[in-house]
């Protein structure tokens, strides 16, 4: 059970992108100035867009949200999970965010908690809390491509999307499509640089106005189209941070879908690193 902050695509958690300070003011100015210089290669342009997505989400501090996860199979049968997510921003570009997921529903897993400290290229640190035994268990984070609680979201889709986890290539500019009518998008490819990814690449649509992920196509290890994530119903918080309340993942190979519906976003609620201590997991219910 995972979930972490999300940076680039911002799916589940919140955070979504951040992290640029290490590169220094010069690059920031360049990026902030908007459009990259003409001589840019597609790789440089892709990276600059990803960094801008990240930069615009910088400084949110921490966030908390509740969400409903509806899993539907090919026959249309569905089941629901309810969870709470907290994310703590770790501003250094060399480190990822910390996130905490607690399950409220179904009742048999109520109180189960998942804690993750995201790293850039190293394996994440993850703990699981099992309420029946009151046992906190450090778990392997090598299962990045595994499904999160039986959903169509893999751990790596939900965990913090730090800029440096991927390399990038700008493909083209085009209208965002039906998920964001009337907006123009950058279309960039990103290639996982970390180990154990289930993807060769992801194609992402980023809207040019607010630098929000609108759609992501995931290509499996054989480079076949596996899944599409669509992000809708964006709301802006603290006059800066955009979060999509509706995130819909379709698995093209199995016909299964997972819809995440977020509710009650809160920012800067005042959590700190100690709230993300593995020893506190047993006290979340």
């Amino acid at each position, binding site marked *: 059970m995972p979930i972490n902050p999300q940076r680039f695509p911002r799916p589940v958690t919140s955070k979504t992108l951040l992290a640029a300070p290490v590169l220094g003011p010069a690059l920031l100015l360049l990026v902030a100035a908007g459009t990259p210089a003409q001589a840019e290669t597609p790789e440089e342009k892709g990276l600059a867009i990803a960094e801008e997505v990240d930069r615009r989400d910088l400084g949110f501090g921490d966030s908390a949200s509740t969400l409903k996860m509806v*899993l539907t*199979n090919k026959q249309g049968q569905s*089941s*629901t999970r309810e969870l709470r997510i907290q994310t703590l921003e770790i501003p250094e570009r060399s480190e990822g965010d910390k996130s905490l997921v607690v399950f409220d*529903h*179904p*009742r*048999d*897993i*109520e109180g189960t908690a998942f804690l993750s400290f995201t790293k850039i290229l190293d*394996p994440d*640190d993850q703990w699981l809390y099992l309420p029946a*035994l*009151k*046992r*906190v*268990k*450090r*778990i*392997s984070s*090598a*299962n990045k*491509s*595994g*499904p999160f*609680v*039986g959903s169509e979201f893999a751990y790596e889709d939900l965990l913090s999307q730090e800029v440096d986890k991927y390399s990038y290539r700008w493909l083209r500019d085009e209208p965002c499509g039906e998920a964001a009518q009337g907006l123009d998008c950058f279309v960039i490819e990103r290639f996982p640089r970390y180990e*154990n990814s*289930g993807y060769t690449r992801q194609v992402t649509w980023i809207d040019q106005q607010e630098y929000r992920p609108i759609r992501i196509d995931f290509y499996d290890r054989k480079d076949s189209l596996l899944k599409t994530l669509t992000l809708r119903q964006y709301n802006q918080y603290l006059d800066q941070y955009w979060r999509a309340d509706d995130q819909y993942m379709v698995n093209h190979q199995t016909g299964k879908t997972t819809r995440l519906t977020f509710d009650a976003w809160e920012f800067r609620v005042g959590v*700190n690193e*100690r709230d993300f*201590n*593995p*020893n*506190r997991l047993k*006290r*979340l*219910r």
Partner: protein
Amino acid sequence: MPRLERPGAVGLLTASLLFGLAVPQPASSQDFDFSGFVAGEVRGFPEGAKSPEQNDSHISPSLVLQPELRYRWNRRDDRITFIPFLRIDADDDNRTHADIRELSWYHAEDDWDTVVGISKVFWGVVESRHLVDIVNQTDLVESPDQEDKLGQPMLNLNLLRDWGTLSFFVLPGFRERTFPDNDARLRGPLPIDDDDASYESGLEEWNVDFALRYSQTFGGWDIGLAHFYGTSREPRLIPRADGDGNLSLQQRYDLIHQTSLDAQYTTGPWLLKLEALTRDGHDGDRFFAAVGGFEYTLFGIFESPADLGLLAEYLHDGRDDETPATPFEDDLFLGARLALNDVEDTELLAGVILDADQEERIFSVEFERRLSDNLNLEIEGQLFDNIDENGLLSGFEKDSFLEVRLSWFF
């Protein structure tokens, strides 16, 4: 406990409690939650009972009720939890029992938190045996696997610091271990007196026990160091004869010092685990015991979402005769855990403990699957094979069982 001694902190704590109870707050800041489960359970014993006084029925039903009440306020920094437990068993009078698993107040501050009341604490990392876990008494009538625990009265303070977490426990009020009734299955080779325990402490069950634990994460390492001083949770079982020459076992609870280490190193798909302890205070000599091994997980086997974990652990225990007996002196545990990672959270754990000396074998299997939003199915079985007739496990010789449990969560 530096923070607690500051008058400010205590005042704040009291104030927050009073404030939380007395002043209306936004709806989100306090809430009441009622949940829990009721479970119906059937154990099947393929073989007849070993001794004539034991109930010979092959099918043994049982009913469990565990409601959970939670009241939280102060942004969940304050919580009162009440979890009573009741089991009604058709065949075992001792297994028909009630307990308060939890009745506690929890309060959290920035870098410390505290639990006051009856609660449960788990220490440890290995799967085959819970060696270093000592705060709570084992509720042995629940299952021979010793994973179920009785609620323990405690004052617990945890200091969460950059250098690690330091936990202090004051444990007033000792709980005697529960044992299956003499006419029930899964009892020992001899009847156990359940109302005549003897204690080393003159205060008997009112002796106050203490425990201290330090835990911290260092990169891939998760380490716990603990010391316990107080009444041993494991009794010695001392044979004695009544006037008619009938043998039975008297429970004897000694005062012990136990120092323990639990450590796990996590790297890639590997979890390397160790629990070790040294204990002194029984009539026998100070002894050393350890369980060490690994869990290796194959993620996404056969191009599916399923994970297969392979487990191996070696169990050593150097205790002598004047010490509570254990069957795990020189044993090997091999196991496999299959997680389908499906919507129903289907999981299967199967394993065997092999005794190197007596060549006894205990096979076990646990299966779990969600049937609906509220309904859960568990199947658990243990097979006692090649049991030494004069050994500690001889009472289990005919008691291999398969248990089916349906739990309704509300």
